[in-house]
């Protein structure tokens, strides 16, 4: 098995290529089977691999060929497989398979069915390469590959300009981070002479001391990449817009897998980050700030997918917090559970949108509890996990993160409090969603409930979201062990109770109506604050005026090619000379004679040196 792990990304890739080349000639059913089966096989192979790994705990390193070899720079097309990789691969292939299955029904009516699966399969392949890469350059290949697939899928319905805009925004904003990350790669190679992650970390530990500047810069550059991909402040603005893509895409790419690539990157290179404690603090602060910002924003959103998108940003913020405080395995654990419940929520919302004729506004839904029971239960379970109610999967992972954050010296308690605030908000907005959409009176009538191809993935994900917290992820070998100490018990109790309080608040505000917040919401401060949160803290507006518009303006200003003006000047100069001289060619003999005499005077003066006066 270990020799054939390269098949896992290859199979979806081949399927993608096949669909691209021959998609137009295949029947819809064939397309669906090909698309789903390829990921299914990949998932199966991953499962086999997992079984094998559980038995022997053997790290696999497989080099296919040397990508390029120039002056000691010799990255390979080579894979590295350990517990962390296994977790990521399982999530990608497993959740990916379910979402593919879901998509067969969701996208059934779309004329570009083949294109959809081609992109989706390619995404799975690129994502697998990302997590399996042995060196940072190959990782970068996967990294950019998923970016392009994300771009393609967000803009899948290209006929609407807004979708195209969202897609470009997604790509370019992440590209900013990617470029910084590329610079980080340059720095790392220049300093350490290799991009192979394992060797590199080893080198780094020998070359640098903890707290040196260069690892700090390198780590910060990598963080930039991670921030872009994982939609953290300040590069998070693309993710809510990216909801323009088909909902299963949001589930797979913008919730379960791609957006967590940043988390994976930092986890994978944690050896470097350990050398740069400042960088880790930065990661933690970014994480918690993003988390809070997104949670507040999610509170005010009315579009079901945007709520989920901000919730994703917020949850990834928790993962960053985890990484920043050194809770590596907790971060990855949260990554996994989040993949389960967020995919579940997205697919659920997809089902709703599918059945409600592309309705996105939650206030136009309502009362769906009885009409779409499968979806309702999916949402209930997913929201419970998201809110981290006890015994759900989200509870276990988030609890770990908060506890470990608390233990951090100095800023630990502050992070913990902020995290709790976030958890409270999470509970409120997630159950706001549930109460508004599924209870109350019906505003729109769904034409049907989900079919089996939607129901099965939902059910499986429900199961995973419930029990995912009991999984033991095999990353103990990967990360340094934590000291195992526990904080005081009251901390734990507070952590557990906060989400429950949040749910109750949501219940009183949005369901029973006992808690009136209208007065608060309608006050001047409340209104403007609400508006501020609704707009995502005005960050989009800021960027638009700070970067986008000036760039458009610059491009417009330079459009006429100012450099050409220099040459235009030369041309004009020549034309002027031409004009003057042409006027001098007056055709009059006397004028010609005068010019000859003047010439004669000139020549005599020069030759006899008369002007010099030296007689």
């Amino acid at each position, binding site marked *: 098995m270990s020799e054939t792990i390269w098949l896992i990304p290859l199979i979806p890739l081949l399927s993608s290529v096949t669909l691209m080349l021959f998609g137009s000639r295949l029947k819809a059913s064939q397309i669906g089977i090909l698309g789903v089966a390829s990921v299914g096989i990949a998932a199966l192979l991953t499962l086999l691999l997992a079984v094998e790994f559980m038995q022997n705990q053997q790290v696999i390193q497989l080099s296919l060929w040397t990508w390029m070899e120039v002056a000691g720079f010799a990255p390979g097309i080579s894979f590295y497989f350990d517990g962390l990789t296994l977790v990521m691969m399982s999530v990608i292939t497993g959740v990916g398979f379910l979402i593919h299955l879901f998509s067969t029904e969701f996208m059934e009516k779309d004329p570009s069915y083949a294109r959809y699966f081609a992109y989706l399969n390619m995404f799975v392949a690129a994502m697998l390469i990302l997590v399996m890469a042995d060196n940072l350059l190959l990782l970068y290949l996967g990294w950019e590959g998923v970016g392009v697939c994300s771009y393609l899928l967000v803009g899948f319905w290209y006929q609407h300009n807004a979708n195209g805009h969202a897609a470009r925004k997604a790509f370019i904003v992440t590209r900013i981070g990617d470029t910084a990350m590329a610079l980080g790669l340059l720095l790392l190679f220049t300093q350490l002479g290799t991009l192979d992650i394992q060797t590199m970390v080893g080198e780094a530990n020998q070359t640098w001391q903890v707290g040196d500047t260069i690892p700090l810069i390198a780590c910060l550059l990598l963080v930039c990449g991670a921030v872009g991909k994982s939609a953290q402040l300040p590069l998070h603005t693309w993710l809510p817009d990216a909801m323009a893509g088909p909902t299963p895409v949001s589930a797979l790419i913008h919730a379960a897998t791609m957006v967590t690539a940043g988390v994976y990157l930092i986890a994978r290179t944690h050896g470097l980050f350990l050398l740069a404690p400042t960088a880790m603090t930065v990661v933690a602060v970014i994480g918690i700030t993003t988390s809070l910002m997104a949670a507040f924003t999610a509170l005010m959103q009315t579009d079901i997918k945007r709520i989920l998108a901000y919730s994703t940003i917020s949850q990834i913020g928790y993962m960053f917090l985890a990484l920043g405080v050194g809770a590596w395995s907790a971060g990855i654990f949260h990554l996994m559970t989040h993949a389960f419940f967020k995919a579940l929520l997205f697919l659920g919302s997809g089902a709703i949108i599918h059945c409600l004729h592309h309705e996105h506004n939650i206030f136009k839904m309502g009362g769906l509890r009885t009409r779409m029971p499968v979806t309702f239960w999916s949402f209930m379970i997913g929201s419970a996990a998201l809110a981290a109610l006890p015994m759900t999967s989200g509870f276990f992972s988030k609890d770990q993160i908060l506890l470990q954050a608390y233990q951090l010296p100095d800023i630990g308690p502050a992070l913990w409090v902020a995290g709790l605030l976030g958890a409270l908000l999470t509970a409120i907005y997630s159950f706001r969603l549930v109460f508004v959409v599924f209870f109350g009176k019906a505003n729109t009538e769904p034409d049907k409930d989900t079919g089996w191809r939607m129901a099965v993935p939902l059910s499986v994900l429900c199961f995973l979201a419930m029990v995912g917290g009991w999984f033991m992820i095999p990353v103990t070998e990967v990360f340094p062990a934590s000291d195992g100490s526990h904080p005081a018990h009251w901390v734990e109790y507070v952590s557990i109770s906060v989400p429950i309080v949040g749910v109750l608040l949501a219940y009183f505000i949005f369901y029973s109506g006992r808690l009136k917040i209208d007065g608060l919401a309608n006050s001047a401060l409340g209104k403007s604050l609400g508006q501020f949160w609704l707009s995502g803290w005005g960050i989009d507006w800021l960027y638009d005026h700070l970067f986008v518009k000036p760039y458009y303006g610059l491009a417009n200003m330079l459009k006429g090619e100012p450099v050409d003006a220099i040459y235009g000047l030369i041309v004009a100069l020549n034309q002027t000379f031409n004009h003057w001289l042409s006027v001098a060619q007056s055709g009059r003999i006397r004028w010609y004679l005068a010019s000859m005499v003047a010439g004669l*005077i000139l020549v*005599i*003066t020069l030759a006899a040196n*008369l002007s010099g006066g030296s007689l």
Partner: protein
Amino acid sequence: MLEIVFFYIAATVALVATVMAMTRANAIHALIYLIVSLLAVAVIFFLIGAPFAAALEIVIYAGAIMVLFVFVIMMLNLGEKGDKQERQWLQPSIWAGPAVLSAVLLIELVMVISQTNGPVSVTAVSAKEVGLALFGPYVLAVEIASMLLLAGLVGSFHLGRRYLERDNLEKQGGQ
């Protein structure tokens, strides 16, 4: 001594006559001044020991070439109207610029020439010496000069004949 006095007189006459020639409105008057100038130059030739050149100046220059001018002027029959126009053309606005140019050129030439010294030879170069030179080393020049005259002849013949032909044609047209 006397020669020097004669030289200055002749030079003055030549210059004045030339200026007059250049500024007359009437072509015939101008031509006569020009002839006077040429005669004065012939005197200078004589004074500096070139009697043969002086003779040629009078015979060919003043005699033949100037007569050619007279013929043409007669043929064209430039009348009073032409004179009036000539006077109009001789405005300061027209001659000021050229005058400055000429003056500058003159000043340069004077600067150059005033540096030379040394007299001209007293011993006259006789016609015989000139003849010997002409048909000695310069014999080819004489031949080429003949070709030059031939070219002038053929050219003026071609141009002049057509002028005359026009008259014939007009006469025929009149009939």
